[in-house]
Each structure stands twice: as C-alpha cells, then as structure tokens.
C-alpha cells in the first residue's frame, strides 16, 4: 500500500513538479541509489569492505563514452550498453577479485583502495584514447522509438527509476537466494562458513562481480545524462560518499541504503548550498559546501561509534554488530 503510493508519486513527480532542476537532482540521486545498492551487495551482504567502488563506476561510464561517441566512431545504442556495461564492470570485478579475495578483510580494503586509485589514473594517463584530463564529451544521446532524449532530465529520471526497480528486485532475490545466505554466512564467520561447505572464493567473487555490475549500469546512465566523462569524477571521495550512504542508512538493508543514499544526495545538492545562500543572506561569510567531506567523516565515525547498524537497520546485521561488541574480547 505504502509502496504503491510511493511508486505512483515517483512516476508522477515530473508532471507535478515542473521545476526541471528538481527532476535533474532526482535523476542524479538515482544514479547514486544504484551505486549504493551495488556496494551494499559487497559490503552489506558479503561483509567485504570495498574502498575502490568508484573504479567500477568509472569503468561503466568510460565504456559508454568509448563505445557510444565520436571518440572511436563506434555508436553502440544506449539500451544495448545497459546490457554491455554491467558485464564489462563485472568482468573487472572478477579481475580485481580473483587474486585478492583470499586476503583478510582489512588487506582487501586497502587493495581495493589501490585499485580505485589506479583506474582513474589510468584513464587520465592514456590520453591518446581518453583525452586525459579533458575527458570524453559529446556522447551519443539515447533515444526511444526514434525520439531522442534531448537535454531534459526527465527521460533519464524514468530510465533510472526503472533501473532502480530492477536493482531492488535483483538485490532482494539475491539476498534470499542460496548465494545470499552464503554471503551472510561468510560475513558472520568466514571460517565457519568454509567448514559448512561454502566455496568462499567463488561466493565472494560473485559478490564482487554482481556489485560491480550495478555500478556499470549507473555509469552508463550517469555518463549519458551528463554527456561527459572525465577522470576526476571517480576519485576516492566518491567511493567514500557511497560508503557513507550505506553506513548512514544501514548496511545490509536494501531500503536503508536507498534512504541513506537519498538523504546524502539531498544534503549535498540542496541542504549545503541552500544553507550557504541563507548564511550569505544573513551576512555571514560561511560556505557550508566546504564542509562536505567533514560531513562524510563525521557520519562514518559517529555512526560506527553510536549506531553501527545505521538509521534503518537490517535486524540481523544489528544483532551481529551489537553481539560482537558485547562479547568478551577473545571471541
């Protein structure tokens, strides 16, 4: 009932609110919801801390930019790229995961961080293919039944809404599948999971590949909407932003991470700029947008200290986080 109302409201939003910048904001926020859903599979379900998730976002975006623009004269249709890019991103997920997933959790985190640095750096350095720091612009405009999307955000908004719906369905089904239960078993106790006959390597690889595929989707939609990709869009701060969305909303809970993602996008795009405008109007020389990274940091630290399960927790995850915290230290 509540869900039906939400769906109707979201579908009707561009008709009710004629302000294109609001639709534009929602479309951008939608791309980050997709990213959060994907990272949630890796961090929330499987408990693997991936600090280079933006790299897969970069790979998705650049695959659209290279295969659907004048860059190489290749023009793969947008809708086909929505199938291709997740596969490409997933392949890179496998490529990164295969040698590294045997590592312990914190080592894995730092290796993914390194990967997250290497990928944009590589796109930056291979200037003959990617135009280096300028990035690739004038990407192909998607079109539906011969109608090009144009420069309005509305068609992208609907595309992202559709992708999010698919993402939610996929994530829910994965969570309740045999694979999803295996992820949770690994998250809770890898050693025990292995002794129960779970092949931890392939299970973790699946989490990496599937999580990466979401950001492939988000990358295509985001690149097409922005009409530009450049290496500076995919830095460490993007990975940490998506992680903060998860931590704020509740790792492991699909609705939690969606809410967390939306809240942070709202704060970034509306609350901080608006407060700055208000402060300036009140004669205060304060620029709140400068505190953006401070905010991510404060969210990560304070949530971990006071409410590690997030604002909208997954019940199981909450139990894990508090149970271990209360257990004696040799456990």
């Amino acid at each position: 009932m509540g869900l039906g109302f939400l769906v109707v409201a979201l579908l009707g939003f561009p008709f009710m609110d004629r302000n294109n910048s609001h639709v534009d904001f929602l479309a951008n926020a939608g791309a980050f919801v997709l990213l959060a859903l994907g990272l949630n599979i890796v961090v929330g379900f499987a408990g693997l801390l991936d600090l280079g998730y933006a790299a897969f976002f970069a790979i998705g975006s650049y695959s659209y930019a290279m295969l659907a623009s004048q860059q190489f004269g290749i023009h793969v249709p947008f809708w086909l790229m929505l199938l291709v890019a997740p596969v490409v991103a997933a392949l890179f997920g496998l490529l990164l995961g295969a040698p590294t997933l045997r590592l312990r959790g914190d080592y894995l985190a730092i290796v993914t961080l390194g990967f997250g640095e290497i990928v944009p750096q590589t796109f930056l350095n291979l200037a003959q293919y990617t135009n280096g720091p300028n990035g690739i612009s004038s990407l192909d405009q998607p079109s539906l039944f011969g109608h090009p999307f144009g420069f309005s955000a509305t068609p992208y908004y609907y595309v992202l809404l559709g992708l999010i719906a698919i993402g939610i369905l996929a994530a829910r089904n994965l969570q309740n599948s045999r694979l999803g239960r295996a992820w949770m078993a690994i998250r809770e106790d890898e050693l025990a999971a292995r002794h129960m006959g779970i092949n931890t390597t392939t299970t973790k690889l699946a989490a990496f590949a599937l999580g990466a595929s979401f950001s492939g989707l988000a990358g295509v939609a985001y690149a097409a909407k922005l009409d530009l990709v450049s290496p500076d869009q995919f830095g460490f701060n993007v990975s940490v932003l998506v992680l903060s969305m998860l931590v704020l909303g509740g790792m492991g809970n699909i609705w939690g991470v969606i809410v967390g993602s939306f809240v942070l996008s709202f704060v970034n795009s509306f609350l901080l700029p608006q407060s700055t405008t208000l402060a300036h109007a009140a004669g205060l020389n304060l620029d709140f947008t400068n505190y953006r990274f401070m905010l991510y940091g404060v969210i990560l630290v304070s949530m971990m200290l006071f409410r590690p399960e997030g604002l909208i927790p997954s019940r199981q995850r909450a139990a894990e986080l508090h149970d271990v915290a209360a257990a004696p230290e040799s456990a």
Partner: protein
Amino acid sequence: MDVFLQQVVNGLSLGGIYALIALGYTMVYGIIELINFAHGDVYTLGTFFSLAILTGLGVSGEVHGPALVGVVVVTLLASMLLCGITGVLIERLAYRRLRNAPRLAPLITAIGMSFILENVMQLWRGPSPIPFPDVIPNPSFNLGVVSINVKQIGVVLLAIALMAALQFFIYRTKLGKAMRATAQDRDAAQLMGIDINTTIALTFLIGSALAGAAGFVSGVYYGTTWFFNGFEAGLKAFTAAVLGGIGNVAGAMLGGFLIGLIEAIATQYIPGGAQWSNVVVFSVLVLVLIFRPSGLLGESLPEKV
C-alpha cells in the same frame, strides 16, 4: 649508470620519509590490528604544525649557525609532540570504543577520521599547496658519479636515528616490553598487570610522533605542503609497512627505503615517468599481498579463531 645511482640516492631520501610514516602504521597494526587510515593525515598535519611553529618563530628563510640547530630541534620536537597528542586523541575518541567491535567498524571509523582531518586542514590553510620556508642551507656534495645534498643526508640520518631509538625503546625498556606483550596477547598482558589502555595510547603517541617528524622533514625536503598530501604518502607508507612485514619495526624501515627506491627508479625508467609511479607502487602492494602477505621480514601467523 650515473643516472641510476643518482636515482638510488633520491630514492633513499624519499624512502626515509616513507619509512618514518610506515613505522606508525606498523606499530598500530601490530598492537590493535587496525589499518589506521588517518595516519597519513597525521603526517600532513605534521607539516602544517611545523609550518605554524616556524611562522611563530619568525623564520621565513635560511637560518645559519647555532640558530639553525635551535630552530630545527625546536620545530622537530614540537611537531612530534603535537602530532603525538593528536594521535592519542584520535585513539581515545574514535578507536577505543570499537576495540572489540567487528573489524569493519574501526576500519570505517579510521576512514572517517582521515576525512575529518583532511577537511580540518583544508579549512585551516585553504585548498591550494602552501610553500614551506627553505630553512636549511642546502649545499650539494659531488661524489664523482652522484651528487648528494645536505637535506638528503639529513633525511636518511634522522630516519635511521629515530628508528634506532625506537628499537631501543621497544626491546630494552619496560614500557617497550609492555607494548610487545600487549601486541602478543592482550588478555594475558592485562592479567600480568599491564595497563592496556595506557600501552595502546603510548603506541599511538610514538607512532604519531614519528609521523610528525616525517612531516617536518618532508616540508623542508619538498619545500611545499598540501592538505591532501597524506592520502598518497599514507598509502605508499602503508605499502612499505606491508612489504617489510606488518607489525615488524625493522621491516617498516626496510620497506620504506625499498618503496622510495622503486618509486624513484620507476619515475626515471618508465616512459611517461612520474604519472605512473603511483600505479607501480600500488601494483607492488597487490603483488606482495598476494604472494607474500607476511612481507619480507614478517612471520606468517595462523588465522585466529
């Protein structure tokens, strides 16, 4: 050959800075098994503190004679002290509560602390690179095929001296013994009457103080600093700690010098040079973790159940 030897000299001095930072990573990891992401930013904070102290002392250019020794000693010690205090505060506020939480939790907190420190520094001194006064006169000595300058000698000597002092502290003093015991088995150490909280705080104090020393040195060496320096330097130093064998003090030192050498030589010999040096260092990290996760000098430990 001359070029190669010159890059070795450059690499060693670069490595001295990485080694000092790596010591902090390795000590903290050794005692509470946490990758202290904020450590790289404590190092950058060291350059900022040093800069503030030099400004406070009214130093803006080269200093000579006895005044030089005074300025260097005061700035170095003050930077170490301030960074040490920062490290202790970070441990107290952000990590202590999470000592028994699942490992993901303190790791995420550490990333958060890193972001907070970076933002604080950005608000303090702005987002652009800041020039660092050229305090030390810097004549070079020509040794036939290579030339070495005073700063390069200073970096390496200071790194070795601090490392020797640290070794002495850890292996020859009672507090050092307490630290080793805590690293080995926290419960047993506590039962033996060791104050765990103080010992861990002490580890953060020393590790962060070494980062403060590295901060001062790098400010003088590079002549510039930037709020975001710590991210890259931190990653490289962490790579150094892992390469040498995390938890192992001598290993961190060895790893630091090796990473400095690898970076300097890669910059020289890979076409396109400097822009690939990060990629090279991270590739080293991945390779070490895959093929020899215990590092060069570390011993491999079975997974704790």
